[in-house]
């Protein structure tokens, strides 16, 4: 078991009571994320597919490396590692997602 930090992006912070970082234990990235999901209702569905893989608009990083280029969810973690959840961000201050092309 390693102790790691998970960085929560702003849009997901309502699920963590506003916390931008959560400390967790686990042996792999997948295990850490499952524990994150178990502790914070509704969060995991926004990050992972039903099969437990990162969704198409989310990347999971271990340190500065995308886990897709490592061993995915099976990538092993070490004490002090930082896992970052990085969803696609559109930009600035539009009013309606579908109909407006207002600029940031």
């Amino acid at each position, binding site marked *: 078991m390693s102790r790691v930090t998970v960085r929560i*992006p*702003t*849009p997901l912070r309502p699920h963590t009571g506003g916390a*931008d970082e959560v400390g967790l234990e686990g042996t792999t990235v997948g295990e850490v994320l499952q524990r994150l999901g178990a502790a914070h209702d509704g969060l995991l569905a*926004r990050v992972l597919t039903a099969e437990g893989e990162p*969704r*198409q*608009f*989310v*990347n999971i*990083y271990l340190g*500065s*490396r*995308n886990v*897709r*280029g490592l061993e995915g969810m099976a990538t092993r973690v070490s004490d002090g590692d930082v896992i*970052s959840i*990085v*969803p*696609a*961000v*559109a*930009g*600035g*201050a*539009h*009013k*309606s*997602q*579908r109909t*407006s*092309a*207002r*600029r*940031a």
Partner: protein
Amino acid sequence: MREAEEIAQGSPVGACRLGRGFLELRIEEAVPDLDRPLVLMCGGGTRSLFAAEDLERMGYHRLYSVVGGFARWKAEGLPFDVPPRIDPNQRERYSRHLAIPEVGEAGQIRLLNSKVLLIGAGGLGSPAAFYLAAAGVGTLGLVDHDVVDRSNLQRQILHTDARVGSSKVASARHTLEALNPSVEVRTIEARLASENVEEILGGYDVVVDGSDNFPTRYLVNDACVKLGLPCAHGAVYRFEGQATVFWPGYPKQRGPCYRCIYPEPPPAELAPSCAEAGVLGVLPGVIGLIQAVETIKLLLDLGEPLIGRLLCYDALRGRFTELELARNPQCAYCGEHAIFPGYIDYEQFCSRAG
């Protein structure tokens, strides 16, 4: 073999304009091959003869000195061109650039001849366009179909209270021309779409993506990939921002495109509107200016562009983090042997995703 002031009057087309003063220091870089024939020219034919003696001592041995020099070249009607120079006004305006060896007069001239297109004259586009105009980027294109709203003024610094209700691109042009009248501001008051994107993006050197919605992000990406253009990308959300450069066509280091990183946009319910979420007004200033810095670096071929790296700024923590962005060799748009699949219905793509 002439001095800088003489060279400024013109020299044969394609000539190496080294000057006499630093000839011995510069010749080896300009002509590393000692066996290459060198034709030396000065104003009248004397200095080039002496220069040939010096170069012979350095090991060059196929040397020719032009009798009568440039005066005769010109008199005989042979082709010459006048190298671009910056005028005294520009010399004063850009003096702090000229003082940087990496920019200098050649770099400033390059900026003056450059064309940058900004997608959006909003939170990101405002600071980027403002500084690019100040830096002397010769042509700035601005695409935006929106009008200035009072709620924009908290961050969109090109606009003013008096211009609430007027067109954003016209307002932006007003501010940019007041700062630097020599910049050509092209306003494109249109909404980017598959039908007009290539016509609008074509002819620019760099695209700065300051859009705020996924359909435009994917459209701009696809067009940049197709046209081989670098895209300085930025995005902001509350206290967090990201910047990178997407340019799969970069000759020195092939990076990813937006689709390599995010093959699909989030479904609308997971992409919260920033009008509700809000954004710290200063934050797009930070990110937009990183986009502007990257743009200048690309235009001048300086340093290491933010290609294949996502620079994330967490304003609350006061922390910059760098994440690797890898290419997807199977990417349908920029992957190996990819044939451009064509533009799609971006609104539909982004509303049904997830």
